[in-house]
């Protein structure tokens, strides 16, 4: 149909695959996300620590640099091991959290505040695909600053030390990848769930802080009052900390078992999914 004809005609051309249609959501969301200069500036800031890590790896493998300190065992300070990458993951996790504070709150609320959901869901596009599509927006951005740069650092170290190092430290690669994804999924589901319930962006961002720091506060209070460690299970940060330590093979210094931490994390995810299930509907039925 040509524009000048201005008449209605059916579309009978080719259709895209239904399995990749959820990627349309991040495609359109990225333009909105990166329209903010603050957002771009913060994204650049997220790569400062990986650059620092990069420098550390380079220096720890640079014979000329090490020769500058003949009386000092500098390798003790510049040791590239599981602890190094554990620290890397912790720092980048906070950046990921702040990044999700920028991106997350508007992801679903924009669609809900203007009744946009029926338009998505009246098409061959399910609620699950909608949630997966929106999760992908955060997953792509957060991946770039967590496991992608993490694995680049691992590769860099392996290229300096020799590929045998990589074979000896495969657990590191696995831990970095899985640990990052645990955090990415947690942040994505939390952001979407809160975005679906709280439509005002600043309040949604505050609610995300509350979920993270509220658990820390309550958990610590319980620990203090009852002289126990059970309160750590309410603390999402510590739960994730235990899982990362276990994945990377370092000592977390916490009494919480990996099993309990996994169960608590699954409960958190279940809660977020329940919240999404209640809100991601074309129309709410008011009883």
């Amino acid at each position: 149909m040509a524009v000048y004809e201005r008449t209605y005609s059916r579309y009978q051309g080719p259709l895209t695959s239904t399995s990749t249609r959820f990627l349309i959501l991040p495609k359109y969301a990225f333009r909105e996300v990166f329209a903010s200069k603050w957002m771009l500036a913060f994204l650049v800031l997220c790569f400062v620590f990986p650059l620092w890590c990069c420098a550390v790896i380079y220096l720890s493998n640079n014979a000329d640099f090490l020769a500058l300190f003949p009386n000092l065992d500098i390798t003790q300070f510049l040791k590239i091991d599981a602890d190094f990458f554990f620290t890397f993951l912790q720092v980048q996790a906070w950046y990921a959290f702040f990044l999700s504070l920028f991106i997350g709150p508007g992801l679903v609320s924009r669609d809900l505040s203007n009744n946009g959901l029926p338009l998505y869901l009246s098409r061959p596009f399910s609620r699950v695909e909608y949630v997966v599509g929106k999760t992908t927006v955060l997953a792509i951005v957060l991946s770039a600053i967590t496991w992608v740069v993490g694995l680049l650092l691992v590769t860099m170290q392996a290229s300096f030390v020799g590929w045998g190092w990589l074979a000896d430290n495969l657990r590191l690669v696995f831990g970095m990848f899985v640990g990052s994804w645990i955090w990415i999924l947690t942040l994505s589901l939390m952001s979407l769930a809160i975005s679906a319930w709280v439509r005002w962006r600043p309040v949604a961002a505050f609610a995300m802080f509350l979920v993270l720091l509220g658990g820390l506060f309550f958990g610590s209070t319980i620990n203090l009052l009852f002289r126990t460690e059970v309160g750590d299970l309410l603390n999402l940060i510590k739960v994730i900390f235990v899982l990362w330590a276990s994945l990377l093979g370092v000592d977390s210094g916490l009494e919480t078992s990996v099993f309990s931490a996994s169960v608590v994390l699954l409960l958190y995810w279940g809660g977020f999914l329940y919240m999404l299930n209640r809100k991601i509907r074309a129309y709410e039925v008011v009883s």
Partner: protein
Amino acid sequence: MDPVIQLDDLTVRFGNFEALKQVTGSFTGRAIGLLGPNGAGKTTLIHTLLGFYKPASGSARIFGKDLRTEQKEARSLVGYMPERDAFISGMSAVRFVRMMAELSGLPAKQALERTHEALYFVGLGEARYRPLETYSLGMKQRAKLAQALVHGPRLLFLDEPTNGLDPPGRERMIRLIKEIRDAGEVNLILSSHLLRDVEECCEEVLILKGGEIAYYCNLEEERSANRKFLELEIIGAAERFVEGARSLDIQCEQHGRRRVKMIMPPERKVRNLYELASEHNVQIRHLDYKKDSLQDIFDKAMREG
């Protein structure tokens, strides 16, 4: 050929409330008007056909696609223009409609091409790069129509398309709907409170009442099947006048104290009515030949349904 919509004992419940009660029917019209008072189940029926609500029992099919087992296939055949404001803030009309086209499965290039065409078609060509939240109500309605037809559906659900529009806006929307209908490539389901909208745009009408079908007819057939009747406005002893008319084998129906509908047998003439009026000292202030309007059909359905 599969009917546009096939309903078999379709029941939809919200808690204990039955919004649709064992609705059964096969609808084949090119443009079907959905009428009924508030709470009759019009919007529930549309939402169920779009897969928003799961039927408690029974089944529904769109062009033969069962909504339980082939929901995605069924949805790929339909376009939906919701009743309420529905858009995504911060987006221009082009981005919004293009995204909706891509979500319906159109490749990016074709989606962009058809987006421009759809926006020109609904009359938003000049305003298509403006953010949607800056649009007037009429423009938002047209943007909703553009997103509903951009992917070229076979069936278009229009839920109160003229809601809140001023008379020129309404005229424009009705004209667009007629153009879509007359293009002959799409079937329409138009839900409206405004009988005039349905009368102007639809060939068939489905009247719902209390979650059940009260009446389903082809408007043209219904009109041609209707006998012409006389509508009179009288002043005076209406009851005696009506009794007198009945004694002349004239079918009468009195509406209030002054309005009377009459179907005359062939042997009677209007002159007889004037004679009768003179006899009973009744003034005939207005007399006109009429046929049942949609309003009459609707009223009858509400009384009898």
